[in-house]
């Protein structure tokens, strides 16, 4: 019962609010449209038309919101970002959905006028009818109702008639309001839902994130090659030099040969350490074996800045888990290198449709996407799993890096 009343309330509110929205949008849009078309030969008219489309877009969004409030949900529209500058603005004129928004404003105004009157009339008529017994006594004499005209002049018949009509109106209010809202919904679905453009947008976004992921991959491989070249490879070459130099001295100068061999041994150890670090950077074994929490805890323990770790039981796909790990790794490396922090914290939580990774420190701040290759690389890496990255790091600190990764619904 309460849910029905709430439903009626929401439907009514949506219809009542829709009318002023539709009315004002209609007025503004028709004025802007006719002015814009009239002045289109002068350049300024085009901008007025853009303004008209923007107003139509807002009205359409508002309608979507109202319908959503009343329980008719429409898939969201993505308005493409046409880029900055004058040309970017003007490109709006070539956006089909914007013109459909405008058409919707015109039609919705007409429909809204009807739905507003019907809804208001129905509710007021119903409530008025069932309370007729009370307020009819204040009516001036000589007011003839329908029953009197039909030959039942008694007051009782008058009251009974009004009560019955009122009751019928009240009882039918929920379906009528529901029907009106859905009528709006049908029109809106026809004009405000643009499957093609939504799909197209999705495709272009996916392409972008795929490209970014591909670039991140290439970047990683290149970095790996460079690290191999600069690290272990150099050490092994030097190791070879040291050993052959020691060989040449074995007979004549055993003391120096020993010193060279000591050096060679040190080089071999360093080369091993280099390789260990590198392989951890490629695919940290602990991540695959023991999961994100253990891997992140190990990362935190390896650093010199005391770091608290808080990972809840969020379950991520393998790719997302990898991305999350490297976000934390890169962030903690930055904390170590640049922040001069005395404490850092890592938090990974899954809430709703998102996993949120937060790495914060109490250091000197001043980190930015533009500065470090590393952070830009992270954005690309996150792009590969449809994630995003934001950084708050005012000069003087503290720094907080927040990455979000959508949790993939297995069913979708």
């Amino acid at each position, binding site marked *: 019962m309460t849910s029905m009343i709430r439903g009626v309330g929401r439907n009514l509110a949506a219809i009542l609010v829709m009318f002023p929205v539709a009315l004002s949008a209609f007025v503004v849009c028709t004025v802007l449209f006719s002015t814009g078309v009239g002045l289109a030969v002068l350049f300024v008219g085009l901008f007025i038309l853009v303004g008209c489309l923007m107003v139509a877009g807002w009205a359409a969004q508002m309608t979507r919101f109202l319908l959503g409030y009343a329980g008719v949900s429409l898939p969201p529209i993505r308005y493409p970002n046409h880029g900055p500058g004058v040309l970017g603005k003007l490109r709006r004129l070539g956006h089909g959905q914007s013109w459909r928004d405008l058409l919707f404003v015109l039609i919705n105004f007409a429909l809204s006028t009807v739905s507003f009157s019907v809804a208001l009339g129905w509710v007021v008529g119903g409530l008025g009818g069932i309370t007729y017994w009370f307020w009819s006594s204040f009516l001036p004499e000589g007011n003839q109702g329908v029953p009197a005209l039909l030959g039942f002049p008694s007051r009782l018949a008058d009251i009974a008639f009004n009560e019955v009509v009122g009751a019928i109106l009240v009882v039918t209010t929920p379906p009528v309001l529901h029907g009106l809202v859905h009528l709006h919904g049908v029109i809106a679905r026809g004009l405000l839902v643009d499957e093609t453009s939504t799909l197209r947008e999705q495709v272009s976004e996916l392409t972008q994130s795929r490209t970014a992921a591909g670039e991140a991959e290439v970047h990683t491989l290149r970095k790996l090659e*460079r690290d191999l070249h*600069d690290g272990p*490879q*150099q050490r092994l*070459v030097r190791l070879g*030099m040291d050993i*052959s*130099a020691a060989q*040449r001295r074995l007979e004549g100068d055993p003391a120096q040969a020993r010193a060279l061999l000591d050096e060679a041994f040190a080089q071999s150890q360093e080369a091993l350490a280099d390789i260990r670090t590198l392989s951890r950077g490629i695919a940290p074994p602990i991540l695959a074996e023991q999961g994100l929490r253990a891997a992140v805890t190990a990362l935190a323990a390896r650093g010199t800045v005391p770091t608290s770790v808080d990972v809840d039981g969020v379950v991520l796909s393998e790719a997302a888990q990898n991305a999350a790990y490297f976000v934390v790794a890169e962030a903690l490396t930055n904390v170590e290198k640049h922040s001069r922090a005395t404490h850092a914290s890592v938090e990974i939580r899954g809430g709703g449709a998102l996993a949120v990774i937060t790495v914060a420190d109490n250091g000197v701040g001043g980190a930015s996407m533009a500065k470090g290759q590393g952070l830009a690389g992270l954005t690309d890496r996150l792009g590969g799993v449809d994630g995003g990255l934001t950084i708050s790091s005012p000069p003087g600190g503290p720094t907080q890096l927040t990455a979000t990764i959508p949790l993939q619904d297995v069913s979708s």
Partner: protein
Amino acid sequence: MRSDRLRVIVADDSVLLREGLIRLLSEAACEVVAAVGDAPGLLSAVDEHRPDVAVVDVRMPPTMTDDGLRAAVAARAQHADLGVLMLSAYVELSYADALLSDGRGRVGYLLKDRVSSLDRLSDALRTIAAGGTVLDPEVVAQLLVSRRADPLAALTPREREVLALMAEGRSNAAIADQLVVSGGAVEKHISSIFAKINLPDLGSDNRRVLAVLAWLKSR
């Protein structure tokens, strides 16, 4: 062997290798007149010291790509008598091409791994300083592999060995040493090879090496 010490510049961005090379070169009775860590440094050091040979890492700052190679080619364009020994972690035929393309010799291209052998480094430097060409066996192997269409098929295994050593820049005597045969046997092999692949025999100097390389690279 020349009695005067070769004057050498070392250019490598890794301090580790630079130190190792300097020690090795002084053992090889060379005088290291400068050691630099990037391409611009190499160019100015060559201008200043006029060394006999520059030992250059292909990959160096500023861009960490083939800066060393490009700087070496540029330095040779200015100082025609400058010898260059390129060192690289990889075998890239295009690196060898860039060095060899002026056809003047006095160049070498070795894998970094080779330089731990003192004799190898020392021989290479002497050959280069004397106007010869030195190529890493890996480079030659790639040249031999990349040539499929096959006058090479007509060569006996021994002749292929001789051809490879020739391409590396070895002298007849060095080839004879390596294969443990007499100098006369080597000369016989060589004229047989030249007859089979249809090249004029140019004697035993660097022009012969370059002709062999040119032939290997053709096609």
